[in-house]
């Protein structure tokens, strides 16, 4: 019976009603001495999901905390030009097999989506769950060029780096990577620097932090004097993070608090970091909504260029103006507007007919708001 006990301890206590109530009260105690409403950005889409699914948003409002969604959805922030380059490739060449995560296939662009595009004979788009599955496709289809179109933050990047390294070790000549890889700390810096959105603190993404640890956020506390806390994904985890931020605000002592210590080590995952460093280098990348940010993207180092789909197929990844009339994804990702502020929300844009990536990804703020709001119930 021991395993049962441990699993209960590891999961259910983070959802118990009394714990949630006590945490909300503790947060109220902090904010009542401040006499104002705190605005805290949850960077990660999975946190957005926890907040909506467990009905915490209105309760937090009562406790004088407004949560603002941030850019933490890799599908959402990947600019259309990546998808368009893939669409151009599979519609102009035979025997290209593109493997990608499911959400990526439904992102609407001016050239349609990966799901709606009609590839030339022999070419196809496949959904995979892990980058290693893409590698397996390359082993099994030696007559095809297999491209893994990988989008992700630090959480996913080590898995992708590992896979590319293995492809090199196996000398798999028909495998390559289209890297849509994004780093969270530079994006936070861009948000803070722009000063467009007033926030009192951040809830840092728990599983990004598993890889990068606490040090990566230190500049937020030191340079921008902004509080922050790493949090897990159970309701009580998120509230613990919010409590920590509220306390830091009250005490005027911004720091990088780790409220997910059962999973996040201060130094991150050294093996994963070393692998990222070995395989990838930073460049000035373009984010949907946030624009160009220095050192915010990762691409393969020149040593691995034979595995880089951009070089191998001469892909043009050049962000233009997105052609989605009225879609406000960009502002949603910056925390400037809420999904309901978009005139298309729930009208011409819903999960069956998404007009922007924020309504596609299960981490997208629009899809989450739609699923857990009256938008869906009214249908």
């Amino acid at each position, binding site marked *: 019976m021991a395993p049962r006990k441990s699993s209960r301890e590891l999961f259910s206590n983070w959802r118990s009603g009394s714990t949630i109530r*006590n945490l909300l009260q503790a947060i109220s105690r902090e904010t009542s001495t401040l006499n104002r409403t705190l605005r805290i950005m949850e960077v990660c889409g999975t946190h957005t999901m926890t907040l909506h699914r467990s009905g915490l948003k209105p309760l937090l409002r009562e406790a004088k905390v407004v949560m603002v969604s941030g850019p933490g959805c890799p599908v959402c922030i990947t600019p259309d030009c990546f998808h368009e380059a893939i669409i151009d490739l599979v519609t102009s060449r035979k025997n290209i097999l593109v493997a990608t995560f499911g959400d990526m296939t439904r992102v609407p662009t001016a050239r349609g989506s990966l799901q709606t595009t009609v590839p030339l004979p022999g070419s196809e788009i496949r959904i995979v769950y892990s980058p290693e599955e893409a590698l397996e496709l390359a082993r099994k289809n030696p007559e095809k060029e297999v491209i893994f179109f990988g989008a992700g933050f630090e959480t996913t990047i080590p898995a992708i780096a590992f896979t590319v390294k293995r492809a090199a070790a196996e000398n798999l000549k028909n495998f390559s990577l289209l890297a849509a890889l994004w780093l969270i700390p530079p994006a936070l810096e861009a948000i803070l620097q722009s000063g467009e959105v007033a926030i009192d603190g951040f809830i840092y993404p728990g*599983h990004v932090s598993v890889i990068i640890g606490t040090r990566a956020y230190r500049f937020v506390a030191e340079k921008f004097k902004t509080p922050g806390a790493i949090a897990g994904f159970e309701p009580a985890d998120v509230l613990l993070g919010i409590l920590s931020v509220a306390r830091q605000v009250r005490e005027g002592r911004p720091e990088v608090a780790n409220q997910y210590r059962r999973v996040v080590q201060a130094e991150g995952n050294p093996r994963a970091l070393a692998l990222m460093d070995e395989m990838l280098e930073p460049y000035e990348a373009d984010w949907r909504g946030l624009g160009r940010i220095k050192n915010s993207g990762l691409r393969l180092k020149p040593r691995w260029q034979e595995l880089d789909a951009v070089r191998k197929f001469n892909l043009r990844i050049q962000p233009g103006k997105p052609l989605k009339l009225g879609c406000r994804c960009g502002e949603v990702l910056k925390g400037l507007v809420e999904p309901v502020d978009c005139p298309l929300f729930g009208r011409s844009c819903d999960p069956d007919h998404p007009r922007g990536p924020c309504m596609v990804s299960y981490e997208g703020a629009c899809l989450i708001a739609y699923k857990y709001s009256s938008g869906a119930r009214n249908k």
Partner: protein
Amino acid sequence: MCLAVPGKVVSLEGNGTGKVDYLGTTVLANLSLLPEVKVGDWVIVHAGFAISRLDRKEARRTLKLFKELEKLSPAE
């Protein structure tokens, strides 16, 4: 995308892989990013890779903190 699920390592399968049990469903995961992982450990798996080990001592510490909050909150 960064959703990652905790599961329990039930066997090591060689070549840096192992079987991970998610409350009944067993899946093969790549354990290469967690060199010290052992059978019986709880791990967080993302995109097929175990990325972190769950530290039960820390989990218990947080649970204790929840208990302490209980004392601080006025009974209803």
